[in-house]
C-alpha cells in the first residue's frame, strides 16, 4: 500500500499539494461554525435522571439555572448598604434573562398577628437609623430561615439567588448580571458562582486556553524541530503538515455541529503534538536517505516505503488508543474519541502524502545535499550503539528494576479514585473557587438536589409523606437546607391561627390544604410556582448540599434514594435529580468505563502489533514499555493524590495510543535490521542507532507539546497535560530500555520474520 502511495505522490506531487490547499480552504470555511460549550449538562445524555429532572424544573418550576451573587462587606447593616443592595436587586430583577431574584430585600413572608395575616416583605422598609438597622440585623440573624441561607452567620455577607429564565443564553445572562453588579455595587467584593456562572467562567477560560496554548505548543515544536533538523524545511514542513491536519479536524468538528467542550478543547494541542511525530519520522528518514545520496523517485519510495509502514502502525495504534475512549459513557469523551481519530488519520495522510509531495516540488529547485551535519548523526548514532552494548550486559538488573518500580506503582495506582468536582477545575486561588468555598461553608452549599413528587399534592396524606421524607432528608450528611411546599403550608396554617405554634402542621383536609394554597398565592405566584405546579400535580423539594466532590455526592444519592423508597407509597411517583446527580453521573461514567477503555485499547493495540509483525512475541514485547508506563503513571497519580476526572479519564487510552508508537518504531526497525543477516547484538545496535534519535525527539516533541498544557487556565487540563507528558517521556525511554533488554535475551531462532513490512 505504501508503495502505491509513493507512486501516486511521485506522479502527481503538484496535484497532491493543490488538493490539500483546496481542502484546507474548505475546512477553513467551517471553522466559523465552531462554538464552545461549557455547560456540564451537555456532557451527559438527555435520559440521565439528573438531566431529566432539571428539564422538569425548567418546564414546570420556573427554571433550574441560577447565578449565586455573593456580596461581602465589612458591615452589611451600615447605613446606606441595604439601600444599595435593594437597588442592585431591583436592577437584576429588571434584566430580561432573569426570572426571579431571591434576596432578603425582596423576600415575601406570611406572618400571623392575632386576627391578622400579614403578607409582606421580610424587610418591609429599610431603616435609616443605626438603631433600626441593628434591630433588623438581630431579627434576621435570629431567624433560621435566613441565617446561613441568605445571610452569613456574621451578618456581613449576603447571597442573592438569581434564577434565569429557562432557555435563555446563560453566558449572555451572566454577562448582563456582571455588568449590573459593576454598575450598582461599589466598595466591597461581589463574586458570582452557581452553575450558570461557573459555566461562563469555564467558557472564558477555555477560550483563553485555546488562543494561548496553540501558539505555545507550536513554539515548543519549533524549538524541538530546530534542535533536530537545523534547517527551515525540517521545522516548517512537519509543522505545516500537522497544522493543516488540525485545521481539517476543526473544520470537520464545525461541519458536524459538535461543540468544543472542556474535553474537546484539548484536541488541537494534542493533535499538534501527536501528529507532528509522523512528520518527524518522514523528514528524518528523508534526511537519512538523502545522506546516502539517494535522490528523486527512489528517495520517495525509500522514505514512504520504509517509514510509511511504521508510521502507519503508529497511526493505527494511536487511532485505537484514542478510539478506545468510545467505550466511555460520557458524550464529550466519545466526541473526543471520534474527532481525535479523524485528526490522527488526517495527520498520517498529510505526513505520507502531502509532505513527500511538497519535498519533491522543493527538491526540483534546491540542491541535493541537505540535512544534519554528519558529525551530529554520527554522534547520535554512537551514543545509542554504546547504549545497545550496555543493555546487552545489564539486561537483568534493568528488568528487575523495572519490575520493582511496577510493583510499587501498582500499590499506589490502585488507590487512584474517580472524582468529579467542577469547582476544582479552577485554580485554588481563583474567584469561582473562593466564592464556592464561602457559599459551601457559610450558606449551605451551591449544589442543590431536586426531588420531584408526582401525585395529588393537595392530599394531606401525600403531604405527610413529603414531610416525613424532608425531615429525614435533613439528616443526610452535607444536606443543609431543605425547601418544600410542606414547610410553607405549615407556616401559613400557623400564621392564619395567630402565630400559634400548635397550628404549624399540615391541614387535616384536602379543602384546608387547597384553601391555604390559594391564600399563599397572595404572597406572589412565582414563590409558589417554584415549589408546586398550578394544577397541584407535581411538587418540588430542594435540598442544598455543601459538598462538591462526586464521591460524597454518590453516598448522598444512595441514601436519598433509600429515603424515597422508604417514605413514599405507590400512589406517588418520586424522582431524584439536579446538578449533583449530573456530577454523579459523570463520576459513574468515568468509574465504570475508564478501565474498559484501557483494556480495549490494550487488546486492540496488541492485536495490531502482533498481526503487523506476524508475531505474538513481538505483540507481547511491544506492550511491555507501555504497560510499564501506564502502571507508573497511575502510581504517580496515587502518590500525588491526583484523582481521575473527565479529562484525566482519557489518560490511559491516549497514553497507550501515543506511547506505543515508540515501541512500533523500535520493532519495525528491529525486524528490518534482522532481515539483513546480522547477529542479535549488531541488530540491536543498528536498531537503536536508527530509531533512538527520532524516538527521543518524538517523545520530547510530543511530551513537551503536552507539557505546555501546564500553562492552561483550567486545572484539569494542566493535570492531563503533565501526566501525558510524563507518560510520553516514560514510554519513549521504556521503548529504548525495556525492549532492547527483552530482545537481547531472545534466541536468534526467535520467530522474527526477515525483511520489512510494507
Amino acid at each position: 500500500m505504501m508503495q502505491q502511495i509513493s507512486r501516486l505522490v511521485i506522479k502527481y506531487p503538484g496535484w497532491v499539494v493543490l488538493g490539500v490547499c483546496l481542502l484546507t480552504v474548505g475546512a477553513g470555511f467551517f471553522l466559523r461554525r465552531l462554538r464552545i460549550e461549557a455547560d456540564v449538562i451537555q456532557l451527559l445524555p438527555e435520559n440521565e435522571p439528573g438531566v431529566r429532572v432539571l428539564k422538569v424544573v425548567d418546564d414546570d418550576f420556573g427554571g433550574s439555572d441560577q447565578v449565586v451573587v455573593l456580596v461581602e462587606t465589612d458591615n452589611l447593616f451600615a447605613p446606606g448598604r441595604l439601600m444599595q443592595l435593594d437597588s442592585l436587586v431591583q436592577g437584576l430583577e429588571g434584566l430580561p434573562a432573569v426570572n426571579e431574584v431571591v434576596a432578603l430585600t425582596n423576600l415575601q413572608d406570611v406572618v400571623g398577628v392575632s386576627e391578622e395575616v400579614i403578607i409582606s416583605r421580610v424587610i418591609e422598609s429599610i431603616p435609616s437609623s443605626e438603631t433600626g438597622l441593628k434591630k433588623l440585623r438581630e431579627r434576621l440573624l435570629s431567624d433560621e430561615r435566613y441565617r446561613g441561607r441568605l445571610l452569613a452567620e456574621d451578618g456581613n455577607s449576603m447571597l442573592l439567588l438569581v434564577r434565569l429564565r429557562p432557555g435563555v443564553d446563560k453566558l449572555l445572562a451572566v454577562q448582563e448580571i456582571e455588568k449590573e453588579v459593576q454598575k450598582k455595587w461599589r466598595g466591597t467584593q461581589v463574586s458570582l458562582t452557581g452553575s450558570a456562572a461557573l459555566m461562563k467562567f469555564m467558557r472564558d477560560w477555555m477560550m483563553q486556553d485555546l488562543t494561548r496554548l496553540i501558539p505555545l505548543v507550536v513554539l515548543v515544536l519549533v524549538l524541538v524541530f530546530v534542535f533536530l533538523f537545523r534547517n527551515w524545511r525540517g521545522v516548517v514542513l512537519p509543522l505545516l503538515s500537522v497544522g493543516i491536519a488540525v485545521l481539517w479536524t476543526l473544520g470537520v468538528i464545525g461541519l458536524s455541529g459538535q461543540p468544543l467542550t472542556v474535553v474537546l478543547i484539548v484536541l488541537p494541542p494534542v493533535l499538534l503534538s501527536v501528529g507532528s511525530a509522523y512528520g518527524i519520522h518522514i523528514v528524518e528518514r528523508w534526511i537519512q536517505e538523502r545522506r546516502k545520496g539517494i535522490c528523486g523517485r527512489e528517495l520517495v519510495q525509500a522514505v514512504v516505503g520504509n517509514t510509511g509502514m511504521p508510521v502507519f502502525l503508529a497511526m493505527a495504534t494511536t487511532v485505537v488508543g484514542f478510539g478506545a475512549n468510545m467505550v466511555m459513557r460520557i458524550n464529550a469523551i466519545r466526541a473526543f474519541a471520534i474527532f481525535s481519530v479523524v485528526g490522527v488519520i488526517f495527520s498520517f495522510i498529510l505526513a505520507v502524502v502531502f509532505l513527500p509531495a511538497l519535498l519533491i516540488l522543493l527538491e526540483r529547485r534546491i540542491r541535493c545535499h541537505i540535512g544534519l551535519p554528519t558529525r551530529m548523526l554520527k554522534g547520535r548514532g554512537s551514543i545509542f550503539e554504546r547504549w545497545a552494548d550496555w543493555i546487552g550486559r545489564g539486561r537483568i538488573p534493568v528488568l528487575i528494576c523495572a519490575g520493582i518500580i511496577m510493583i510499587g506503582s501498582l500499590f499506589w495506582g490502585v488507590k487512584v479514585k474517580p472524582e468529579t468536582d467542577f469547582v476544582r477545575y479552577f485554580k485554588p486561588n481563583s474567584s469561582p473557587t473562593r466564592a464556592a468555598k464561602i457559599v459551601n461553608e457559610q450558606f449551605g452549599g451551591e449544589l442543590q438536589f431536586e426531588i420531584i413528587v408526582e401525585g395529588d399534592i393537595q392530599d394531606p396524606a401525600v403531604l405527610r409523606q413529603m414531610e416525613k421524607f424532608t425531615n429525614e432528608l435533613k439528616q443526610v450528611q452535607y444536606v443543609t437546607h431543605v425547601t418544600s411546599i410542606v414547610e410553607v403550608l405549615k407556616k401559613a396554617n400557623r400564621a392564619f391561627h395567630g402565630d400559634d405554634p400548635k397550628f404549624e402542621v399540615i391541614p387535616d383536609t384536602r379543602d384546608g390544604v387547597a384553601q391555604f394554597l390559594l391564600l399563599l398565592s397572595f404572597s406572589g405566584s412565582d414563590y409558589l410556582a417554584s415549589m408546586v405546579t398550578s394544577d397541584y400535580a407535581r411538587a418540588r423539594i430542594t435540598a442544598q448540599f455543601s459538598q462538591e466532590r462526586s464521591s460524597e455526592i454518590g453516598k448522598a444519592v444512595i441514601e436519598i434514594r433509600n429515603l424515597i423508597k422508604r417514605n413514599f407509597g405507590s400512589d406517588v411517583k418520586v424522582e431524584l435529580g439536579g446538578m449533583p446527580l449530573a456530577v454523579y453521573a459523570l463520576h459513574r461514567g468515568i468509574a465504570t468505563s475508564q478501565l474498559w477503555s484501557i483494556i480495549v485499547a490494550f487488546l486492540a493495540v496488541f492485536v495490531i502489533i502482533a498481526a503487523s509483525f506476524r508475531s505474538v512475541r513481538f505483540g507481547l514485547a511491544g506492550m511491555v514499555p507501555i504497560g510499564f508506563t501506564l502502571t507508573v503513571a497511575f502510581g504517580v497519580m496515587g502518590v500525588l493524590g491526583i484523582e481521575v476526572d473527565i479529562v484525566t479519564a482519557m489518560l490511559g487510552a491516549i497514553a497507550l495510543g501515543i506511547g506505543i508508537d515508540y515501541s512500533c518504531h523500535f520493532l519495525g526497525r528491529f525486524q528490518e535490521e534482522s532481515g539483513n543477516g546480522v547477529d542479535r547484538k549488531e541488530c540491536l545496535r543498528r536498531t537503536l542507532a536508527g530509531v533512538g534519535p527520532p524516538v527521543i525527539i518524538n517523545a520530547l516533541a510530543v511530551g513537551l507539546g503536552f507539557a505546555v498544557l501546564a500553562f492552561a487556565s483550567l486545572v484539569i487540563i494542566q493535570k492531563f497535560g503533565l501526566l501525558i507528558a510524563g507518560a510520553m517521556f516514560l514510554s519513549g525511554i521504556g521503548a529504548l530500555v525495556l525492549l532492547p533488554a527483552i530482545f537481547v535475551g531472545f534466541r536468534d531462532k526467535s520467530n522474527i520474520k526477515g525483511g520489512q513490512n510494507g
Partner: protein
Amino acid sequence: MGKIKRIMLLLGGLFIGVYGMSAQEVLNRLRNSTTAQDRRVKAVMRITDKSKRVQERTLRMVMKGDKKMLVTFISPAELRGVSFLTTAPENMWVYLPAQGRVRRISGSAADQSFGGSDFSYKEMASISFGTSVASGEADEVELNGVKAYLITLEQDGERSRLWVEMERFLPLRLEKIARDGRVVKCIVFADFQKANEVWIPRTVRLDNLARGTITELKLLDVEIDVGIKDTYFTEENMKKGA
C-alpha cells in the same frame, strides 16, 4: 342617556374634531361608557400556565364603585365558599371555610397574584380605570383595523398604554410597562355588551409576558346597577359563601 349628556357629548365631539383630544378626556369618556354604580357578575377564570396546564375557577364578584368588592369562589369544590372582601386597597379580608374563620390580610397582598391568576387583586378591583390618571395627548391609531386613541396611564407609579376604541370609547388593549420599558402584561378586552347604558367586556384576557402565563376571565351573568348597598360588604356575607 339624558338629553343634556347627549348634547354635551355632541359638543365635545365637535371640539375634538377641531382641536384633537387630550388623553385625560379620552379616559373620562371611557369611564362614562363603562362605569356602573355597582355590578354583580358570575365569571369563569381560566388560568393557563407556561406548560399549557389549565385551571378553571368559577367566581361570583359583587362590586360597588372602584373600592368595594366581594369575590366568592363557586368552584372547584375544594375552594367553594372561599371569599375575599375589600373595601379599600389596604382593607382586605379572607374567609376560608375549611378553617371557618375570617382573617384580615395586610401588607402587599393586594399587589400580588389573585388566586393564582395573573391579575392582582388591585387589577381586579380597578378594571374600570377609576383610579388611573392619563397624561399628554391622545394619539389616533389603528388597532387590528379599528380606529382608536392611544393614551398613556399612570396608576400607583406604574405606567400603562391603553388603546381606546374611537367610536364608542371602549378599552381595547392595555399594556403594562416595566421600568425598563418592557411590556410585562397585556390585557385585551373583547365581546362588549351593553347593559343599562354601560358597556361591559364579556371577555378579558391577560397575557403575562414576563411569566408566559395567560388568564382569561369570561363574564357569564352580568347585572348592572342593581342597587347593592354598602352594608352588603360584611363578614357575614363572606361566610354565606357560594
